[in-house]
């Protein structure tokens, strides 16, 4: 037997595949396997969806996450508590501040500290602003996914004002790293409240604009109505949270139902649900949520209490031994931190429950039998941030 180098062997195999590839795979009974991702415009990053197609219909599909896994749970074990917020900012990178809140609340619960009322209010304002910044971009991106480019630019234009407001408080546009155990790093700058209320008016106008441009469009309705219907019980069994489950008619919002230490119980807002459970419902619920969030921010800005923004906290933070789980209603759904402390400077173990990971897990069930264009609609309407899937 003649010796064949590895290179020659690979070239041979590849040439065989090249001859056979397109033709044979199309003709086999199983159909053609289409890889959407890891590099694909519709996956917001590096999500990979493998779909076996029969023509343009999906026979089965699977989601392969992990291309952007950054090991944050493990990294928290070698960081001190104040350092961890820097890391977890990067989980859901569009609504960064909202990531910090449940972790800080869990740490506060372990240390038995409560933030002063002013800090709680500002925290809630920034929490909701993170939601606005996040979902405004979703509403714009929705258009891009369905083929309309224009809404995305409107979204980027108006989100900029929200980011400006976040930046003028925290110093960071994307990753504020502003929440502290026992309160906040700084107070609000002068004139911020009035500016914010003006920005909220802009955002409400943006919502109206998007509603007219996209939600009122017949093609948009034809593309989203009845596509990717999730019945409530199926959604719950897959652990869907946030707007995805509310769009299936489940009236469940942690901001109202289990307020873990934010100021949501002091404001008046409505939790929107939709009975249909299809892609349109998910997008529509998010649109309404953005409007509600702007109203929450307005109310909180009006009733901002005075006082300190920091509770009495020791200079070196050592968290007493114990376990705490705090979950909040983040832009993408429920985000929770299970923190186990052994009394050290950093946690012994942290488990991060991020919303997108559970939300995307329904894809194999949901994508079966749909057409290729509907994969994109469904992925867009489930709305995930890749950093939120691969922590």
């Amino acid at each position, binding site marked *: 037997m003649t010796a064949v180098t590895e290179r020659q062997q690979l070239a041979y195999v*590849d040439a065989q*595949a*090249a001859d056979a*590839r*397109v033709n044979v795979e199309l003709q086999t009974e199983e159909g*053609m396997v*289409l*890889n959407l991702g890891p590099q*694909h*415009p*519709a996956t917001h990053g590096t999500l990979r969806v493998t779909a076996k197609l029969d023509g*343009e219909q999906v026979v089965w599909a699977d989601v392969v996450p992990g291309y952007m896994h950054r090991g944050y749970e493990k990294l928290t074990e070698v960081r001190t508590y104040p350092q961890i917020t820097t890391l977890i900012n990067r989980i859901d990178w569009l609504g960064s501040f909202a990531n910090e809140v449940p972790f800080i609340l869990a740490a506060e619960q372990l240390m038995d500290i409560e933030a002063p009322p002013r800090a709680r209010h500002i925290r809630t304002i920034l929490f909701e602003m993170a939601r606005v910044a996040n979902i405004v971009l979703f509403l714009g991106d929705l*258009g*891009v*996914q*369905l*083929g*309309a*480019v*224009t809404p995305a*630019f*409107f979204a980027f*234009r108006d989100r900029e004002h929200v980011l400006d407001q976040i930046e003028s408080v925290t110093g960071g546009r994307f990753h504020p790293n502003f929440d502290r155990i026992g309160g906040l790093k700084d107070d609000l700058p002068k004139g911020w409240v009035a500016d914010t209320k003006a920005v909220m008016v802009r955002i409400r106008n943006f919502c109206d604009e998007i509603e007219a*441009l*996209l939600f009122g*469009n017949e*093609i*948009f309705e*034809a*593309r989203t109505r009845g596509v990717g219907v999730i019945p409530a019980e199926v959604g719950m069994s897959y652990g869907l949270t946030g707007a995805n489950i509310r769009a299936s008619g489940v009236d469940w919002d942690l901001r109202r139902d289990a307020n873990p230490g934010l100021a949501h119980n002091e404001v008046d807002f409505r939790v929107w649900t939709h009975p249909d459970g299809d892609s349109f419902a998910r997008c529509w619920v998010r649109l309404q949520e953005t409007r509600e969030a702007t109203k929450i921010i307005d109310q909180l800005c009006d009733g901002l209490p005075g006082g300190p923004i920091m509770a009495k906290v020791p200079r070196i933070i050592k968290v007493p031994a114990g376990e705490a789980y705090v979950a909040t209603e983040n832009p993408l759904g429920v985000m929770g931190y299970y923190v186990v402390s052994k009394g050290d400077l950093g946690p012994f173990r942290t488990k991060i429950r991020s919303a997108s990971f559970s939300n995307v897990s329904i894809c194999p069930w949901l994508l079966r039998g749909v*057409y*290729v*264009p*509907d*994969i*994109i609609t469904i992925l867009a309407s489930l709305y995930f941030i890749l950093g939120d899937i691969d922590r």
Partner: protein
Amino acid sequence: MSTLALELSYWQESVLRTVGVLLAVLLPAGTLVYVFLFKMMSFMQSRLGPMEAGPYGSMQLLAEVGKWIQKEDIRPWRADKRLFALAPYIVVASVFLIYAGVPFGPDAVFADLDTGIFYVLAVSSISVLGILIAGWSSANKYSLLGGLRAAGQLIAYELPMVLAVVGVVIQAGTLNMQGIVAAQADGEIFGFGGIGNPYVITQFVGFFIFLVAMQAELTQTPFDMPVAESELVSGYMTEYSGMRFLLFFIAEFASAGAFAAVAATLFLGGWSLPGVDLDANWMNVVGPLVLLAKIMVVSFLVFWVRFTYPRFREDQLQQLAWKVLIPLSLVNILATMALKVAW
């Protein structure tokens, strides 16, 4: 060309024709890209668009072309070498062939065919071949899906387009493009001949169907399934880069110009101006400009829709063609026939 004031020998005429057809293809294409893709789209999306290269970014086009020409020509290893290289030329060639039949003035026409409109509609579908070849030869699944989608879509929308034109042909009583222009210029609406009779007024249903079918033939946004960026990356163009991509890009906008020219000729009176003698020699110079203006009007509609709408799904797109547009155009033909006989 012999009726022009100057006598030209055969080779001079050939050079003139070559330069003319290159101008006819590239000039509207470049104008459309700059005015609509760069500027109008930007204004619609509340941004400025290119501003640095030249005044108001008007040299941006040259910069882009220069960039594409410089780029490395990447060909997938598994691609079918010859077909892969051939495909963009077929697509571009079909645009040249369309312009060959479109009149720009009383004598400024590359080929004055008796069955001009028939010829134009026939050659316009050659580009499907190029797109299918591109999709197949790229050895890429996205390209393949895009190519097949394009084939299905272009064949489906060829029909309403042809049927919409039939109404015009019945009304004008000729298949000759010059004849259709003349019929519109000499026509009158209820005895009023001041602006002639541009068929957009009497054939408004046909105009609408033609525009929709044109949007689909050009694979512009509500019908851009073949290149659906968020699904198929770039459809049949996914594997193309550099010069070959540039050819596809030119073909996309040049054919937008070509179809707009056909629509302007059929429905907006072509190169003629109301109240101007059709045989005036100077119309050979002004006519192309008039046609260009009308091309801009029609393609404004096309690009306006393109930047506003989300896209259809494949089945919805086919339903629109077969269940709405084709019956509608058949009804339009019947109505036109009945009225033609009645008057």
